[in-house]
C-alpha cells in the first residue's frame, strides 16, 4: 500500500511540474515571438501577462466540446487522449539529475523512440475520425513527415550510441563527463536539430498546420479540451525532444569544461538546474526558428529528409564506428556504477572523467 502511494506521489511530482512547464512554454513562445516582431505580446492577465496560460486553459476548459455529427465518435475522442498520454509517458525515463529519474531503463533510448513512433497514431486517428478533408490531409502529411524523419533521427542517435556503448540515458550522460558530444559530433548535432524540428511538426516544417492550405491541419474539428490536449501534447513533445537533445549532445546535467579549476566554480549550480538551462536554450531555439524562417514546401521537406539527411547520417554512422574501431576507443559500460553507494561516490567526487575512473577503480580494489 505504501509502495503504491509512493509511486503515485512520484508520478504526480513528475507530471504537475511538467504540465506547468508546458503551459509556460506556450507563454514563452508568445512572448519571444512578440519581442522578435517588436510587439508587446500578452501582458494583460497578471503581472507581465504571467497568468496568461492559466487564463487560456480556463477558457478552453469551459468552452463547449463539439462532436461533428458525421465523425467517428470513439476514435474522435481517443485521438487527443492518445497524443497527450504518449507525450507524458515518455518522460518516465528522462534523467534530470544524477539518479533522479523515474525509471532508469536499460533500453531508455529505444523506449523514447518507440513512444515517439506511437505518437503518429493519435494524429492519424484524429484526422481520419473527424471525417473532414482538411483534417485528413493534415494528418496524412503529419504522419508521412514523422515517419520519414524518424529514420534519419534513429541513425543519428545510433552514431551517439556507438560511442556510449549503452542504451541507458543516464549512462549516455555519464560517458559525456569528459567532453560533450556536441564537440566531436557537431554535424550530427545540426542534423539532429533539424530532424527534431521536422519530427515535432514545428516551423519551418509545420506543413501539417499550413494555415494557407489546410485550415489548421488535423485538429480543425476539435474544440475546447480536445484541442487543448493536442496543444499540450505537441508542446510536451517539443520539450521532450529538447531534453533528449540535451541528454544526447549537451551532456545532460553535467557542467561544461570538466577541469578542476572551473569545476569548483560550476559546482555551485546543481545538476538539475544545468539540465534546465540547456533545455531552456533548446526551447528558445525552437521558438526562434519559428519566428525567423519561412515554411518549406512539402516536396522540399521530403527531399531533405530522404536524399540529404538519410545518406549523410548513414555515412556519419559508418565514419564514427570506423573511427572508434580503428582507434580502439570503445568505452566500457557503467551498469555497475548505478547502485546506491556508488551514486554517493559519484556525487561526492565527479569532477572530470579521469576522476570518475579513479573513483570506480578505488571502489573495485
Amino acid at each position, binding site marked *: 500500500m505504501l509502495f503504491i502511494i509512493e509511486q503515485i506521489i512520484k508520478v504526480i511530482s513528475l507530471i504537475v511540474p511538467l504540465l506547468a512547464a508546458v503551459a509556460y512554454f506556450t507563454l514563452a513562445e508568445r512572448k519571444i515571438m512578440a519581442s522578435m516582431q517588436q510587439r508587446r505580446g500578452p501582458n494583460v492577465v497578471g503581472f507581465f501577462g504571467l497568468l496568461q496560460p492559466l487564463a487560456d486553459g480556463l477558457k478552453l476548459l469551459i468552452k463547449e466540446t463539439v462532436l461533428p455529427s458525421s465523425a467517428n465518435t470513439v476514435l474522435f475522442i481517443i485521438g487527443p487522449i492518445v497524443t497527450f498520454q504518449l507525450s507524458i509517458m515518455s518522460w518516465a525515463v528522462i534523467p534530470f539529475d544524477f539518479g533522479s529519474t523515474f525509471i532508469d*531503463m536499460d*533500453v531508455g533510448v529505444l523506449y523514447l523512440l*518507440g513512444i515517439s513512433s506511437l505518437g503518429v497514431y493519435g494524429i492519424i486517428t484524429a484526422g481520419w475520425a473527424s471525417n473532414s478533408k482538411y483534417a485528413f490531409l493534415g494528418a496524412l502529411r503529419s504522419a508521412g513527415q514523422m*515517419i520519414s524523419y524518424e529514420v534519419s533521427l534513429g541513425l543519428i542517435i545510433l552514431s551517439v550510441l556507438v560511442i556510449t556503448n549503452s*542504451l*541507458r540515458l543516464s549512462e549516455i550522460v555519464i560517458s559525456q563527463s569528459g567532453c560533450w558530444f556536441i564537440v566531436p559530433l557537431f554535424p550530427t548535432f545540426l542534423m539532429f536539430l533539424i530532424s527534431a524540428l521536422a519530427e515535432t511538426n514545428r516551423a519551418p516544417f509545420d506543413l501539417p498546420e499550413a494555415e494557407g492550405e489546410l485550415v489548421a491541419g488535423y485538429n480543425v474539428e476539435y474544440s475546447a479540451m480536445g484541442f487543448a490536449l493536442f496543444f499540450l501534447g505537441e508542446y510536451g513533445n517539443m520539450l521532450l525532444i529538447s531534453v533528449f537533445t540535451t541528454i544526447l549532445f549537451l551532456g545532460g546535467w553535467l557542467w561544461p569544461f570538466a577541469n578542476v579549476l572551473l569545476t569548483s566554480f560550476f559546482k555551485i549550480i546543481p545538476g538539475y538546474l544545468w539540465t534546465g538551462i540547456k533545455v531552456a536554450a533548446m526551447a528558445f531555439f525552437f521558438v526562434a526558428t519559428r519566428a525567423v524562417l519561412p515554411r518549406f514546401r512539402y*516536396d522540399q521537406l521530403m527531399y531533405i529528409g530522404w536524399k540529404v539527411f538519410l545518406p549523410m547520417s548513414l555515412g556519419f554512422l559508418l565514419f564514427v564506428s570506423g573511427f572508434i574501431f580503428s582507434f580502439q576507443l570503445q568505452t566500457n*559500460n557503467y*551498469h555497475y556504477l548505478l547502485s546506491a553507494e556508488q551514486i554517493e561516490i559519484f556525487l561526492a567526487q565527479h569532477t572530470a572523467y579521469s576522476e570518475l575512473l579513479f573513483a570506480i577503480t578505488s571502489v573495485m580494489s
Partner: protein
Amino acid sequence: MISCALFVVLTMNTVYAVFFLIFSFCVASAILLYLGFEFLAMVFLIVYVGAIAVLFLFVVMMLNIRFIPWVKKDLRFAPLGFLVLAFFLVLFLFVVLHIESDTYYTLTAEESYSSASSFWMLSAAENTEMLGTLLFTSYGYPFLIAGYALFIAMVGAIVLTLRHIPLPSKKQDAFVQVTRVLSTVRLFYKNRKI
C-alpha cells in the same frame, strides 16, 4: 492477444480491424517485456507498431472502405489459413519441446558461471548484449542472409513501382537553383540595365 487477433478478422469495419492488429502487436510486445526481453519488445514496438501498421492504416484509410458486412466476407481462403495456423502450431510445439538445447540458454549459463568477477556485466542490459553477440558471431551468416533477403525484397518493390515517365516532368533541382549565377540566367526584361 488472441481475442485481439480474432477481432481483426471478425470486425466489420476495416479501420477497426487495423486498430485491433495494432493492439495485438502492443500486447505481444508487452508479453516480451514480461519475459524479460526488453530489447526485442522495444524493437517490436518500433518496427511493427511504429512503421508497418502505420502504413497499413494509411492504405486502409485512403481506400475509403468502411464496412464489410458478414455476407460479403470471402471464406474461400479459410482452409489455407487453417493450414498456415496448423503449420505454425507444429513449429511452436517443436520449439517448446527443444528449448533446452537452445544456444541462448547454454551461453547464458556458461557466462554466468564462468565470469563471477564480472557480475555487474550480467546484472543489467544482458539480453541486449547477448543478442548482439549471438547475432554477430554464431548466427552471423543467417543474419547476413536475412539482410540480403530484405534487400532483394526492397529492390523488387522498387522495380515494380518504377516507371519511366516519357513526358518531361517539371522537376526542381534545389542545388542548381541555388548555385546559378546571374550571367547564366535568362532575363525577361531585356532593356533593363543591371
